[in-house]
């Protein structure tokens, strides 16, 4: 990572900390996900736990895989629109920072909090289940494949979503259209997650890892497309400073 990417990234995090909307979104959305996930798992009657464990575990995993997909697009929307609204986009573009450095910083700043929060949240989730859930529910929900999915697949999906979002933003001529289309960038991640969650691809640690590696490969290939599509002239003249 270049020095300039690091400088932009540090600034992004400093701004996040001072923005109640961002802090609220980062804290509120994952907590909401956690509560939605935990309530059925903790309240299911013991006699139904064995039969329902698999379905409930799949549902829980789906939510954990969605956090790093949904959260970055929300933060990225602020990151770009915030620059535009403050009029800081043009001053940023007049510095020696290259397109690649700016994009890299924005992408990491948007993706990293979601991934880290997902990992923390999963730790809390597993701890609560270990302490309070039926043993069958805990065994079905917290297992090797879940760790691989949350540890490897969720970051790859988060990066994919943010790259698609950046591609849409780079080519849209209207900021509102960009925002609306960016919301669609979560769809590929939702589709892949659903294939596992609903058993269309039989979940196993190896399969999760393979899919994570494949998506990471797609992420790497897409990154060069993202940087080529970014056109500072278009951003400046269509979106304004």
């Amino acid at each position, binding site marked *: 990572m270049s*020095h300039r990417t690091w400088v*932009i990234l540090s*600034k992004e995090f400093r*701004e996040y900390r001072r923005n109640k909307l961002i802090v609220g979104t980062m804290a509120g959305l994952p907590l909401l996900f956690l509560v939605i996930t935990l309530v059925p798992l903790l309240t299911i009657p013991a006699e139904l736990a064995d039969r329902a464990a698999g379905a409930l575990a799949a549902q829980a995993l789906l939510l954990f895989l969605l956090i790093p997909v949904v959260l970055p697009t929300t933060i990225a929307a602020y990151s770009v629109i915030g620059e535009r609204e403050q009029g*800081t986009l043009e001053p*940023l573009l*007049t510095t*020696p920072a290259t397109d690649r450095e700016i994009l890299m910083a924005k992408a990491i700043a948007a993706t990293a909090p979601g991934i880290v929060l997902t990992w923390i949240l999963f730790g809390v989730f597993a701890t609560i289940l270990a302490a309070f859930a039926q043993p069958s529910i805990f065994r079905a929900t917290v297992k090797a494949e879940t760790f691989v999915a949350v540890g490897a697949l969720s970051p790859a999906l988060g990066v994919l979503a943010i790259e698609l979002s950046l591609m849409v933003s780079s080519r849209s001529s209207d900021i509102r259209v960009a925002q609306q289309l960016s919301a669609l960038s979560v769809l590929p991640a939702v589709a892949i997650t659903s294939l596992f969650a609903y058993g269309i691809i039989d979940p196993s640690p190896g399969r999760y890892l393979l899919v994570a590696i494949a998506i990471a490969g797609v992420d790497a290939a897409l990154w060069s497309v993202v940087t080529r599509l970014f056109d500072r002239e278009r951003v400046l003249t269509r979106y304004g400073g």
Partner: protein
Amino acid sequence: MSGGIRAIGLTRAFDGRVAVEGVDLDVAPGEIFGYLGPNGAGKTTTVRVLATLLRPTSGAAEVAGIPVTPQNGPEIRRRIGVLTENPGLYLKLSVHDNLQFFAGLYGYRGEATTARIMRALEAVGLSERRNQVAGTLSKGLRQRTAIARTLVGEPQVLFLDEPTQGLDPAASLEVREAIERLREHGVTVFLTTHRLEEAERLCDRVAIVSTRLLTVGTPAELRAGRGAELEVKVAGGLADPDALFRSIPGAGSWRTDDGVYRVRVEDPAAAAPALARAIVSAGGDLLRLTDVTPSLEEAYLDLIGEAGPE
């Protein structure tokens, strides 16, 4: 030509609409150069092209001795500072943090950054405000902070786009004083404005533009270029002013407004005594005869009027 700006036939069009047409410029290192024009004259577009934010449609330019091309963008931007129309500060960050961020983007770190930030703040008289959150500053202070931001990279060339737009007279004065202090730093300043008194006070030379470049010169040259005038007031008016003014050597066109005549002359010192004698000989009661040098505003309005609507 390190530190200066040169452009030859610089043109930029947007979807067939020409914003800047065939502009030639030669700004010397250390010069404060005014770029005057009405709204929509292409001033901001010229700055954006020279700052490598927009590609020229045709023509060529050099900034700080480097040809303006997309490949040279980062290299040119390392040597320039740009004050955009909007101050563009991160409002939740302090003045210091805003400057630290931009210093980092110019590649500075550690002790060197702190020293640069302090020098930039001192240059605009804002050292005492360094810990204040940018969002709590007045408009004038924000604009001065933005000027300090453009200085942290210690640029060779500074582009200031309408630096006093939207500011009240007191805030405008603060910003103008900050720009005047830049002269001591030897920075080349390219100042776009439509405030003529600002250009006249700050600039070594000014260009007047209306999509095309209409003229370039020192403010005094531009005023003189429009010709000197004598203002005459005669009690009861003149019987045949046209014949009288044509009889004066070096006199040109004339106009009258509310009993006051203004006569364009080549040399006011030679024409004034002749005119006074002619008026008295014609039986006129001369009340006033004044050498009226056109203001930069009049020269500007003449040129813009001649150029017509774009």
